[in-house]
């Protein structure tokens, strides 16, 4: 990781551009008529329920006002009434393209608060699951970008890989999309022989498909012409807007939570942080593509070096016991009951923990007043933070470019609204 990149990009004060109340003067002078176009809330190309009210001069976008909140479900409020185990399903439904990352981030936050230390094997399994989730998330984002530019085949190619990743989740947790994976102190289940077999099979087959996908897109003249220099954002602006994740790295800043604040044994793995230069749609696409390869490397390393040992911490008062033990063992039954009824009392404290989500730094800020539920839980949702830069990125481009910028930013409505 090169250290110069961040150094010379910071401390440049960039002002904020406000949403214009009236149109720029030249439009009024010539009495040109502008079209108001509602892009969304339920437009197939917005990939989610949010609206952009665009002022159009022909094909050209003059201004844009984003409206969000259509699927706001008040997760932060609901979490104030729920014991820790019941908050996991809420996190699943934020970035639903990579829900295991949200789950793990949440468990790590709770573990930090409760002072539970996870064993190495649990960490490695978590790393495998999180990197698989990142791959699935990036595959969908990149292939949908292809679909939005009119190329459908690549999407079909990589969708089957996501399907295989979901089968591995299924083996681990019984669920595919909203995985509800993990427990306080480790994993619910160990990596079963079947899961390892599926993982190895996937590792053997994935590079071929990924190379085919790259062959379809990265040097495709039509595709590159459509996304090159579209919606660029400078590093200074991106930092000022609070960008993280691939969107920030595409602008040339190598900030990655996995390296800056390693969690879950990420310091054991050897991987690189891909960075772009201009922060345009092409760079975002390429950074995600390269990240898929890096995540693939991490999965391989984690599986090769998977430590022996327990897959959960020895913390019976927090770790939900296995179901078979609940049927036979009195203590397990008691702990099961106490955990399910939410009778664990958390220590007083406040903790901020962040993980590198599919879109960037996914943070959990948890304040506990010693009760059974969080006093306050705030999610730092990367989508919410960087979507506000969208109007600035689309002004001056054409409508079809706006669609591509939107899909290259990977805005997930569930995470945007929470």
């Amino acid at each position, binding site marked *: 990781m090169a250290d110069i990149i*961040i150094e010379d990009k910071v*401390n440049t004060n960039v002002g904020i551009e406000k949403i214009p109340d009236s149109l720029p003067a030249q439009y009024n002078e010539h009495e040109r008529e502008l079209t108001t176009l509602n892009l969304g809330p339920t437009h197939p190309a917005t990939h989610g329920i949010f609206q952009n009210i665009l002022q159009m001069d022909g094909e050209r976008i003059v201004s844009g006002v984003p409206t*969000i*909140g259509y699927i706001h479900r008040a997760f932060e409020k609901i979490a104030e009434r729920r014991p820790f185990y019941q908050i996991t399903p809420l996190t699943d439904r934020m970035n639903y393209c990579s829900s295991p990352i949200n789950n793990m981030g949440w468990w790590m936050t709770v573990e930090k608060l409760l002072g539970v230390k996870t064993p190495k094997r649990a960490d490695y399994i978590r790393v495998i699951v999180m990197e698989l989730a990142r791959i699935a998330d990036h595959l969908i984002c990149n292939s949908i970008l292809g679909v939005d530019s009119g190329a459908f085949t690549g999407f079909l190619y990589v969708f089957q890989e996501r399907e295989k990743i979901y089968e591995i989740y299924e083996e681990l947790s019984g669920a595919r999309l909203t995985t509800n994976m993990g427990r306080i102190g480790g994993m619910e289940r160990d990596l079963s022989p079947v899961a390892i077999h599926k993982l190895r099979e996937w590792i053997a087959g994935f590079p071929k498909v990924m190379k085919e996908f790259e062959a379809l897109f990265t040097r495709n003249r039509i595709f590159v012409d459509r996304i090159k220099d579209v919606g660029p954002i400078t590093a200074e602006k991106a930092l*000022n807007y*609070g960008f993280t994740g691939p969107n920030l790295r595409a602008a040339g800043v190598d900030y990655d939570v996995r390296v*800056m604040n390693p969690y879950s044994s990420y310091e054991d793995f050897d991987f690189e942080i891909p960075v772009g230069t201009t922060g345009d749609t092409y760079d975002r696409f390429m950074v995600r593509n390269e990240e898929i390869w890096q995540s693939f490397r991490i999965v391989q390393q984690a599986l090769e070096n998977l430590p022996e040992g327990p897959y959960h911490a020895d913390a019976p008062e927090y770790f939900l016991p296995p179901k078979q033990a609940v049927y036979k063992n009195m203590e397990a039954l008691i702990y099961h009951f106490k955990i399910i009824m939410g009778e664990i009392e958390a220590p007083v404290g406040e*903790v901020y923990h962040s993980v590198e989500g599919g879109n960037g*730094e996914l943070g959990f800020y948890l304040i506990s007043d010693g009760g059974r539920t969080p006093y306050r839980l*705030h999610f730092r949702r990367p989508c919410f933070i960087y979507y506000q830069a969208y109007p600035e990125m689309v002004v001056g481009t054409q409508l079809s470019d706006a669609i591509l910028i939107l899909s290259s930013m990977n805005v997930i409505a569930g995470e945007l609204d929470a």
Partner: protein
Amino acid sequence: MAEQGLTNQHVLDNITAKFGESIFNVEEPYGLLTVTTTRDQIIPLLTHLYNDADLKMNFLTTMCGIHYPDNKEQELGVIYHVHSLVHNVRLRIKIFFPIDNPIVPTATNLYAAANWMERETFDFYGIQFEGHPNLIRILNVEDMTYHPMRKHYPLEDGTREDKVDTFFGR
């Protein structure tokens, strides 16, 4: 790798040297330096953190409101998390103020990211950010008359009798 050597103590010394008495309640829960300041000092403090050549804390990670109904004259609060990407040090800043006078200066002149974060805080807690360019609700419907994250709006319908909390261990 980020530069090492900037510790919480350095950050604290730096800001107390400039702001002195207005930095109080210094804590370090789980390693993250947490300070409380006053409403008047929040923007000067954030600006200092932004521009200071030693700290370079110019990344606003997140910002949220909080409500403590029992703290008289200090019911509402705003919590900022700032991050120095160069030194990889985070700082949490809190301000508290009475619920009758929930006016806070905006940070949008410093961070573009603060725009929506402040709108969200306003939406949930009714905190007015003075100088914000477009302070309207963001996640909830516009004709809502209250600010739902305040503690006096319970999540469940208080008139329901079929669901008694004591049965659910709460």
